[in-house]
């Protein structure tokens, strides 16, 4: 059962201090909401780097290979030698390879973002609030019921304008 508290903050430094205090007090599960990406929050959370780059690398390499392969394979399939020149001419095929690298790489990057950030979401998200898309920073803390009181006091102490239970 997910059980937790949603706290809304007006100020970014209050949010960062609350994040650091929560980490120090050994609250393991919490999600931060921010109206715009901010480095301060990134530093406070110290989260691991995004895995999207792996999708980019693999997608780009697959696309590049496919682009060269499709052009070379179709040339080899109808091997008409003209003027003694090579049947597969890799120099012009670089254009096909490059375009396919960009296309597949870009689309797999977007797919990587979708997979890693779990979108599209079709259900309501527990702990999210419409004010977090406007101007407030939010922290959704998940904890066992006996620790919720402690978390609430901590969040209010750092200047949360609203703390409410969410389940």
């Amino acid at each position: 059962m997910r059980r937790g508290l949603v706290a809304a903050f007006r100020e970014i430094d209050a949010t960062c201090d609350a994040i650091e205090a929560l980490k120090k007090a050994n609250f393991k599960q919490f999600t931060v909401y921010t109206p715009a990406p901010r480095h301060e929050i990134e530093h406070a959370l110290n989260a691991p780097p995004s895995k999207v780059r792996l999708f980019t690398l693999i997608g780009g390499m697959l696309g590049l290979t496919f682009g060269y392969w499709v052009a070379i394979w179709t040339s080899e399939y109808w091997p008409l030698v003209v003027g003694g020149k090579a049947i597969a001419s890799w120099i012009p095929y670089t254009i096909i390879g490059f375009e396919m690298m960009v296309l597949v790489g870009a689309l797999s990057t977007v797919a990587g973002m979708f997979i890693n950030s779990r979108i599209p979401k079709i259900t309501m998200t527990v702990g999210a609030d419409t004010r977090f898309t406007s101007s407030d920073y939010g922290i959704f803390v998940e904890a066992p019921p006996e620790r919720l009181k402690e978390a609430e006091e901590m969040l209010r102490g750092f200047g949360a304008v609203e703390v409410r239970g969410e389940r």
Partner: protein
Amino acid sequence: MATVVEPLRPNIASADVQLPAVRDYEQVDREISGTLRPSAGWFAALGLAVALFLWGAGTWIYQVYWGLGNAGYNPPVMWGVYIITFVFWVGIGHAGTLISAILYLFRAGFRTTIYRCAEAMTVFAVMTAGLFPIIHIGRPWKFFWLVPYPNWRLLWPNFKSPLVWDVFAILTYLTVSSTFLYVGLIPDIAVLRDRETNPVRKRILAVLSLGWRNSEPEWRHFTRMYLFLAAFSTPLVLSVHSVVSFDFAMALSPGWHATIFPPYFVAGAIFSGIGMVFTIIIPIRKFFRLQHYVTINHLDAAAKLCLFTSMVVGCAYMIEFWVAWYSGNPYEQDYFWNRVFGQWWWAAWIMLTCNVIFPLSLFSQKLRRNPAWLFILSIFINLGMWYERFVIIVPSLSHEFEPWQWSGYLPSWVDTSILVGSFGWFFMWFLLFIKQLPVVAIAEVKEIVPPRLRSHRRGHGIDTAGHHEPYGTETPGEFD
């Protein structure tokens, strides 16, 4: 009618504050989502655009019925207004991705408020450009033969042909730039979704926003994804117009067979795109009252980029003439003489005046910071860049190696109408876009607005309520 007293809104950035009149996140949401209410002027503009589009579409039906001969083609000039306009619109489509991707990688701050507009312009311009190869072919219902797939004997299109490269480049560019536009919009659509009261619109926005919640993990992956998309788009922008230039450079006609074509085309594309960005953003900032978002500083910086690309283009023109002289090839020399002082002098001088001479005015800071002048200049740039493509295409075909091949060219009412219709099509999409989705990126503007801090850490012009200190008449800078 009651007059509303507007607060004083300075639009000149200082060293540490990019948007001095934008004070907090709520203001960003309120003012940018406020631009989405349709107005009578917008309906009038949309009506005009749709009328022009219908005129062009009707003419196209006429052309399909009566044949391409109505389009002003006469051998040997078989590439005319349609190919010129294709290259023109592809070129327009370059500034958007330049501004959103290349300037993003270069951390150029002035892109933030204009990039959404430029990116939408890119997508619609490439959509417009994509129509022209189809209009240009004699049997447009066979357009899908352009798509690379094998026939029943597994014979594929020739991957050594520039026309096949073109299909790959343009389709990749259209896909990647529209993806880039859409994913950039996701957080902004989430803002609109949470402010929307109409349940139908709210549901549509909820679907389009894909359930975006502004959580930190979402942002972490989003910013990475954005960076890598920008890194892919950067070489893509440069490659697309290079590939378009190969359509000409691979041919042996005088004036076309030149290795300078790819950089020359890319510089021209970026130049024309920035011209179109000015044509679009200056009326938008005025009618949407966004002067304090798209500030004079942003226009000034974009004008410097415009001046720079104009000089690159001017340099390319001169190198073309120089290479013709230096080659010692009489056909090439005669062709260039004919282009500038012979048969096509008027087109060449429209091009040189609009693209090289008028933009030199941007050396004046006063003119760079004058939106009215930038708008007028941008119209000349659009005209000049259309004529650049005219000057590249028509004189080469009409003045090849043998005198018996020489001829003239005059567009007919059919191709002119379709050209006008393409502007209608482009502006129809653009006008529909600007009233449905935010024309300034809400999330990215929030990134440059200083966030609220607690009172004991005040300073840097931020008052105790977390707002910027108000600006008064004594604030240095210009106001409008």
